[in-house]
């Protein structure tokens, strides 16, 4: 509770938390909040020439190429983006941290094998790997989330690995050994708190990367399947009309940027608040 109060004191963080809350509410209560059915193609949703409508009184954010309500699609799309951004990125962070910490702390054969595995994963182009995986496993939202996690954990593992090695070499870890502390105690009580800043930064940065990767996969047809909307596939569907119907790219684009920025700000603030040596400074 103290932590939350400390976080809310920073205006940028309070605004970020508010925005994240709005997106979560939108995702959960989409059927009640959305003004229209996101997949319904309206007869009056297109001009006589067949062009999408700009924002107006009926369609607050305008309509897309097929005459569907953009606002409703963005509200429903929040579900996809949150699941991808939070769940799949969360899985990636957990796997990456586990692999990195284990390899860095245990070293030896176990460490070598884990890191060579990571290198192997890294040497595949991430996108190709995702396409291959998604093609084998029939694409659905959850499968896409899993695929993205599988592609994204490698960088985190690499970073956490080298960080762990440098922290484990510090004197205070040697002191822990001399007082008889067990490896598990050293790991959880002394190493992880020092890794937290790195983990938080990667976790928040990862949200924007994963949302964009999902968009790419959707564009290539192996991501979230239409007509189900996601912020990524809305942008990709309409990117060629950027000059004539820029609202189609602008609104979901703003949503992605704002969401990842919010997570970044919250992550940074969390990192500072959890570090006792920085307490009381800004």
């Amino acid at each position, binding site marked *: 509770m103290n932590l939350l109060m400390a976080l809310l004191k920073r205006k940028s963080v309070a605004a970020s938390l508010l925005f994240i809350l709005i997106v979560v509410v939108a995702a959960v209560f989409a059927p009640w909040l959305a003004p229209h059915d996101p997949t319904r193609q309206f007869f009056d949703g297109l001009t006589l020439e067949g062009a999408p409508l700009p924002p107006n009184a009926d369609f607050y954010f305008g309509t897309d190429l097929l005459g569907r309500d953009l606002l409703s699609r963005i509200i429903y799309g929040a579900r996809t983006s949150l699941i991808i951004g939070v769940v799949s990125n969360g899985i990636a962070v957990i796997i990456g941290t586990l692999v990195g910490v284990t390899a860095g702390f245990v070293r030896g054969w176990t460490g070598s094998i884990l890191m060579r595995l990571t290198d192997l994963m890294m040497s595949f182009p991430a996108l190709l790997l995702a396409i291959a995986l998604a093609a084998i496993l029939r694409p659905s939202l959850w499968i896409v989330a899993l695929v993205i996690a599988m592609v994204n954990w490698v960088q985190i593992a690499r970073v956490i690995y080298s960080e762990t090695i440098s922290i484990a070499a*510090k*004197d*205070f870890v*040697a*002191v*822990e*050994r*001399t*007082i*008889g*502390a*067990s490896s598990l*105690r050293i790991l959880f009580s*002394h190493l992880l*708190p*020092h890794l937290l800043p790195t983990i938080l930064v990667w976790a928040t940065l990862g949200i924007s990367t994963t949302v964009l990767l999902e968009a790419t996969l959707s564009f290539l047809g192996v991501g979230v399947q239409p007509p189900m909307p996601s912020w990524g596939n809305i942008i990709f569907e309409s990117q060629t009309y950027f000059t004539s119907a820029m609202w189609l790219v602008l609104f979901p684009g703003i949503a992605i940027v704002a969401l990842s920025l919010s997570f970044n700000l919250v992550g940074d603030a969390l990192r500072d608040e959890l*570090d*006792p*040596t920085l307490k009381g400074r800004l």
Partner: protein
Amino acid sequence: MNSSKPPRNAPVLAVERLSIDISHGTGSAQRVVDDLSFNLQAGRTLCIAGESGSGKSLSSLAIMGLLPKVAQLPSGAILYQDRDLLGLPDRQMSRLRGRDIAMIFQEPMTSLNPLMSVGKQLEETIRRHKLDEGGGATRRAREILEAVRMPHVEKRLRQYPHELSGGMRQRVMIAMAMVCRPKVLIADEPTTALDVTIQAQILELMRELQQELGTALLMITHDMGVVAEMADDVVVMNRGVVEEQAGARELFSAPRSDYTRKLLAAVPRLGTAPELASQAQRPRVLEVGDLNVRFPVQRQSPFAKATEVHAVEGVSFALGAGETLGLVGESGCGKSTTGKAMMNMLAYSGSVKLDGRELNGLKGGALKAIRREIQMIFQDPFAALNQRKTVGELIGEPLLVHGLADSAGRRRRVAELLEQVGLSAAAAARYPHQFSGGQRQRICIARALSLEPRVIIADEPVSALDVSVQAQVLALMKSLQDRLGLSYLFISHDMAVVEQVCHRVAVMYCGQIVEIGSCQQVLHNPQHPYTRRLLSAVPMPDVDHKRDFRALLQASEVPDPIKPRGHQPPPLEYLEPQAGHFVARTEEGSLSLY
């Protein structure tokens, strides 16, 4: 040597009423150097002495025009050849830098470009200052290396910084600084990172070069021994304020300010410590027998022979109850490795016995149980404390790990321990970074004491501390020993400190103990040539006894500790000139032990 000093005359460089502020962002500023004035004269040496945070380094950076951006210069002037360096545009300043005013830093490795050979770096400096071109530059590089008494100059020119030892690197730095024959040489703690014998070599070298070239030398140091060896004039600084400014002889014989007196009193002087009452028959607590530590060396090629570094070689000694045994030697001699092996922090062969119980090979629960008996204190108290834990959590952790007390009991014990090491119980709620260096070391000591050990291995426990703080921590360790009957293995490179606290001393060289005996025997009647060499290099805070380091300038070759796997050097033979005083037998005059 003093007789040849030129008389005082017009200063080469004059610092007048220099003040420096460090700004903390929002308008607030802290004065770190306040109203500092001094003159540098050709051929003379001025030392700025002070403890950490005294502003001595910032003053020297101001002269070089290298102050960090947060530093502001509110007032003062630095006059060089009738020009104020503070007002000089950057272009002109950088032309002066290196050519007229040169600087040597503490850490030679970080000041040299690791990807450029020594010869290339020297030639580059020569060309940049347009001293010479092409072949001439190469010739000059060779000459200057010869001037700094570099052995095997041709080989050194082709070598890279990492291939040189610390002392050789510092010689290269001096060569680079002196190649333009600057009028002023600023040396910021030039020997702090070096061993005493190497320090003596570098100091001697700087004295000789100064005499040859008539350079004005400005030396920044925390070591009053170095000040006494080098200075003609001294400025003592404390928290940015000049405490005293005097000629060296005057300062050491009749210090005027309280601070200088306190500082000089805190400096341990070799040969002045009262002899500690040595109880001849102490029950033995710890026995080390034929301890060997070897580290495998990575093979250069799959066909190369497997080799090992012999870090510790056949070390044996015993530690009595309530006794302090000093383990001294220069860096790389294996003293810290011996301590770590005794803590079972690395694999070793041989035996370490605590009350007759063998510690080698202990694992799991048995090892954990032994941790209650034998604890360790590290050199850098800041690195040894997890900054994310409160002091209370840190000191209480050993009790938690060993299940010795519930949380209320831990809190009581932590408060007790804090008071025992001279801190208030309220410190428990704070974090390590909120304490000073000396206080942090007290916290580390409290932590080591929490398990009520009988033996403490202290690895350079006061080396990272200022002298005044150092004296306090040593006094604390001594009083704890008297009260609790602790035995210390005191690992240190500082002979004067060792003399103050140790009952017995062991001198290590290349992984072996070459001399061991009572403090009196080893330090006041040294028998082994290495011990003598080491003692002769210790700078003394006494202007009337300037040491002649010339004999040390001939660098002795250290034997290569890398041997083929399985190599078994013959064990050392020990002579016993006096009861309890053992000295390794050597061939006449030779330091080679293998």
